[in-house]
């Protein structure tokens, strides 16, 4: 199999991985008002004493609801190793899928060989840099969430 065929196969595989993980992410963030799943937003459902979560944001005290992006939910998800691992897998798959897709679009303009090599190197560096930073953030977020006391 040629190199580009392999990369294209990985592009499709990454797409399938994203579909699963980003699907869960979208369910968590954007469909919570219609489809409520307790394990996705643990602080939104159940017996949470809202007075004990002052960092959840002003919206909580104003409207009485805990939003998926409020710290209470971010913390509740962040302490789980499964979530941390999921974030890192999604990060890697999405960066590869997105940046390889961008590379394909740019290559269709038939740039010179030296420009192709430069673009590939820049996109690779950007992807690796963001992956390292994002993975570090996911690991540190878990530590911060575990250390946080109500």
């Amino acid at each position, binding site marked *: 199999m040629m190199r580009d065929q392999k990369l294209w196969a990985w592009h*499709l595989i990454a*797409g*399938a991985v*994203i*579909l699963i993980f*980003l*699907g869960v992410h*979208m369910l968590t963030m*954007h*469909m*919570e*008002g*219609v*489809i409520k799943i307790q394990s996705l937003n643990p602080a939104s459902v159940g017996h949470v004493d809202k007075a004990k979560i002052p*960092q959840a*944001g002003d919206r909580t005290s104003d*409207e009485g*609801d805990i*939003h998926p*992006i409020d*710290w209470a939910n*971010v*913390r509740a998800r*962040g302490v789980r190793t499964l979530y941390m691992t999921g974030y890192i897998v999604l*990060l890697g798959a*999405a*960066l590869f899928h*997105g*940046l390889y*897709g*961008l590379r394909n*679009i740019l290559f*269709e*303009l*038939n740039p010179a060989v030296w420009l192709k090599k430069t673009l590939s190197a820049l996109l690779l560096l950007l992807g690796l840099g*963001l992956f390292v*930073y*994002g993975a*570090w*953030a*996911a*690991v*540190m*977020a878990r530590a*911060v*969430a575990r250390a*946080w006391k109500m």
Partner: protein
Amino acid sequence: MALKSKGFPNRLGIWGWLGGGRWGAERYLYTLHRLTGLGLLAYFLLHIVVTSARAFSDAAWSRAMSQVSGPFFKFGEYLVFLAFCFHAINGIRLGLVELGIAVGKPIEPVYPYRTSVDVQRPLALAALATAFVLAVIGTISMWSD
């Protein structure tokens, strides 16, 4: 011997990306797939940086979220959600077509010629309908807050 690309110039340029010509509706789904993909990528790169605030403290997270709140950002986030709905479902369609599913069986090229695009059309319509349903669920959920 390895084949070497002759590197013909892409004379159509940007129009070669955007224009469907006589290729039919699926060609415009391809264009939309690219546009939504580029939009999602731009958002995602920023999203990595913004959401990394949770790695510092709860206060840093609240501060970062308050900086990207308000109607402008909410509407932008909504557009990202719509782009996701289309890109994800159309991506499934493209994957199925790539695997040879729902494109019909090969036939003899006998005049009047028939195109496999007509065979694929129900899949494209089903994909659009599914993306629409997802978009409606997300719309209700996001704007009912």
